[in-house]
């Protein structure tokens, strides 16, 4: 009985103390509320002391920042980055241009512009290694000792990951064009166009469609891709779908037919759907032949296929003489039309003799035949009978001849305008690599100059003089 009242007394007492505790928290909410209303309130900057002088070490690594006005585009930070999260593009103005890239705060004359300086903060691991090599001290971690340069910045969280790529460059498109970086811009636009296309496609390749269930769509795709005809004999819808999917996958990854058939078989086995119909269809994949497939896979298809083709098509195409031999013809008009005939003949897989005869007929009809040409053509006609090795060696000779006949690149140094000279040299090197003749290279140069509107009579004469 005594315990009963003691219990009641204890209860009342503990109730009072408990309620006074909660009341204390309610009354002193101003001091005790622990919530930080984050976007409106922020914790103060952490004031850490890790055992040595705070100012000497960059202890707070909050975010990389670049003072882009000081950047000289030396790429030191890009090279130092262990995770390759810094991407820098630079454009150098042409030597004779008076484009002023400006000066850094250390009075260093900048020699190039930096149209791209992006740091992917989702990749950055805050190692600080990019900071030390910078000769202008323009890349740094914000906050800490760099407080005077840039406030500490915790809130660089973004809604999409892509936004974590911070772009620091402030170079405008006009400046890039001024400096002669049209090609850079074109390239950049091309990349962005491609990306945009990718976004628009939303992961679906053109021509590809969901061919599992819809019969109408299946018909359509089988029309586009004759490979699906093979599976028409399969009555089970499910296994047909699996097989078609596997087939499409193989096609997309440019497998050859044998590999595709193996892949399809594996896929079917994985679902335990193997039946005689499917087996037949898989066999048909390898055996089924349609011309475009054979063409595109010529180099990859197994040897038996190549052998089969050699017996049918190879003599026609490889027996034809090399088109480069026609380059010896000086007259541009005649050369062009002969080449046309040659191509037509090649497409029709005609023999060399036939092609040459056609050429003769053409020349006769146009009254443009000359001794040189007839000699050349008849030599071509005779070469047809010789061995393949000989043909290769002779073509090599011709190539070397052409190289000798090519004018020297140093001659181009006489061109006054640097821009033009550069582009001409480019065309020259391109032509040299492709074993073009001087005349052709000069033609290309003229067309190139016409394209960029830099052509004038002097240059045309000069170029013609080179040949």
């Amino acid at each position, binding site marked *: 009985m005594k315990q*009963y009242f003691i219990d*009641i007394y204890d209860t009342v007492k503990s*109730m009072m103390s*408990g*309620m006074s*505790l*909660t*009341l204390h*928290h*309610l009354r002193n*909410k*101003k001091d*005790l*509320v*622990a*919530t930080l*209303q984050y976007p409106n309130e922020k914790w103060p900057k952490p004031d850490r002391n890790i055992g040595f002088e705070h100012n000497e070490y960059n202890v707070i690594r909050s975010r990389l920042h670049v003072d882009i006005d000081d950047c000289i585009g030396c790429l030191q930070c890009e090279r130092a980055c262990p995770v390759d999260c810094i991407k820098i593009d630079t454009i150098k103005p042409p030597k004779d241009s008076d484009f002023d890239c400006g000066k850094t705060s250390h009075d260093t004359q900048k020699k190039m512009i930096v149209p791209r300086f992006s740091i992917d903060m989702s990749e950055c691991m805050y190692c600080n290694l990019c900071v030390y090599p910078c000769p202008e001290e323009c890349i740094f971690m914000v906050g800490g000792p760099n407080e005077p340069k840039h406030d500490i910045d915790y809130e660089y969280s973004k809604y999409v990951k892509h936004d974590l790529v911070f772009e620091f460059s402030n170079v405008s498109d006009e400046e890039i064009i001024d400096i002669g970086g049209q090609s850079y811009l074109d390239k950049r636009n091309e990349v962005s166009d491609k990306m945009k296309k990718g976004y628009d496609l939303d992961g679906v390749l053109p021509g590809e469609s969901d061919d599992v269930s819809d019969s109408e769509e299946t018909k359509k795709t089988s029309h586009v891709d004759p490979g699906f005809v093979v599976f028409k004999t399969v009555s089970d819808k499910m296994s047909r779908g699996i097989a078609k999917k596997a087939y499409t996958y193989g096609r997309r990854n440019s497998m050859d037919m044998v590999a595709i058939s193996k892949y399809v078989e594996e896929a079917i086995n994985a679902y335990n759907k193997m039946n005689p119909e499917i087996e037949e269809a898989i066999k048909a994949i390898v055996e089924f032949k349609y011309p475009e497939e054979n063409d595109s896979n010529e180099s990859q298809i197994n040897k038996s296929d190549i052998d089969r083709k050699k017996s049918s098509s190879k003599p026609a195409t490889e027996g034809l003489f090399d088109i480069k031999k026609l380059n010896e013809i000086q007259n541009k008009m005649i050369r062009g039309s002969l080449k046309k005939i040659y191509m037509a003949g090649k497409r029709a897989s005609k023999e060399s003799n036939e092609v040459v005869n056609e050429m003769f007929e053409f020349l006769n009809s146009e009254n443009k035949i000359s001794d040189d040409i007839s000699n050349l053509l008849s030599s071509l006609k005779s070469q047809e009978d010789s061995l393949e090795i000989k043909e290769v060696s002779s073509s090599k000779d011709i190539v070397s001849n052409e190289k000798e006949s090519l004018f020297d690149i140093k001659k181009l140094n006489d061109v006054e305008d640097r821009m033009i000279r550069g582009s001409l040299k480019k065309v020259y090197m391109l032509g040299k690599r492709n074993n073009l003749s001087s005349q052709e290279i000069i033609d290309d140069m003229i067309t190139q100059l016409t394209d960029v509107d830099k052509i004038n009579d002097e240059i045309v004469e000069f170029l013609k003089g080179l040949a």
Partner: protein
Amino acid sequence: MTSIVDTIYNLISYIDIDTNILLLFAIIIPGLVIFVLMALNVMLAVYFERKVAAFMQDRLGPMEVGIFGFKGGKKFWGGIGQIFADTIKLLTKEDIMPAGADKVLMLISPFIIVMGALLTFIGIPFTDGLIVSNFNIGILYIIAMSSVGVIGVILAGWSSNNKWSLYGAMRSAAQIISYEIPIGLTLLLIVIVCGSLQVSEIVAWQAENRWFILHSPFSFIAFFIYFISVVAETNRTPFDIPEAESELVAGWMTEFSGFKWSIFFMSEYANMLIVSLVASFVFLGGWLSPLTIFNIFPESWLLFDGFYWGVFWLFSKAIFLIFVMMWFRWTFPRLRVDQLMYTCWKVFIPFSLANLFLITLWELVL
């Protein structure tokens, strides 16, 4: 001016229609007013409770939701739009009916509960003379009506066809029925002293003498027995065993959602308001100002008494008691079932009976 129904009936009695139809209107109008009052009560009380809970736990509670660009205070009392956001959310939520549920019972059980809560308001005054109907058995009626809800609770638990719901409902029934006894006994004490069951008579007795809480040591104890018992009867923490979250998910409300659940919610907060109002006018002088607490001040000092001040004082007292209930909730841990029963049958009922005996002696001697 004895009751609202009478007043309204007299006001519209000049219209030449059948008396029964007029009476119907006279009843419907206060009913609607009380319903709107309850809806407002639940909206404000939820916000108030969330804020009190947050401050007692060193948090801030709702701070971000505003309405028409107005969020409330910057530091503590922000997030005023949470009231409307919660309401709209509850009313537009999907109403899910479990496949195995008893559909009819599940549909009517929330309405039985809220009906019990709303019917109680017929006997509850808001100030001197502002009462829907002034019974001469007001207290008895209030006790009777506040027990109607338990039928809805048992129906809700049974119809859900869910073990948690049924457990919750059985616990709730046991709890409510148990705690009816100390509530009845403590209110009986008041009835013995002032000799009337009529609410206006009880307050008039307090105006004449003193507040009941300070009438005698026994009525002082009786107030606390009453108050703790009504906390248990409204199923609030620390007596929320019927809906113990950690054991029974949500007890008898587990399978309810959307509008039906919001009806439960409304009835819970309506019950809180009811028991607080009853405690106010039975023990704390009702619509009388605090100056009348011992009736030692002269009449000329009582400037803050009157019809409109009465509403203010009554609701101030009720809101304070609601706050104390919230204070309880965020202070005490939940009782075990046996502790709950111990508290009721071994502490409150013996004390109430002793109180009843001693107050009669007190009245006889003094």
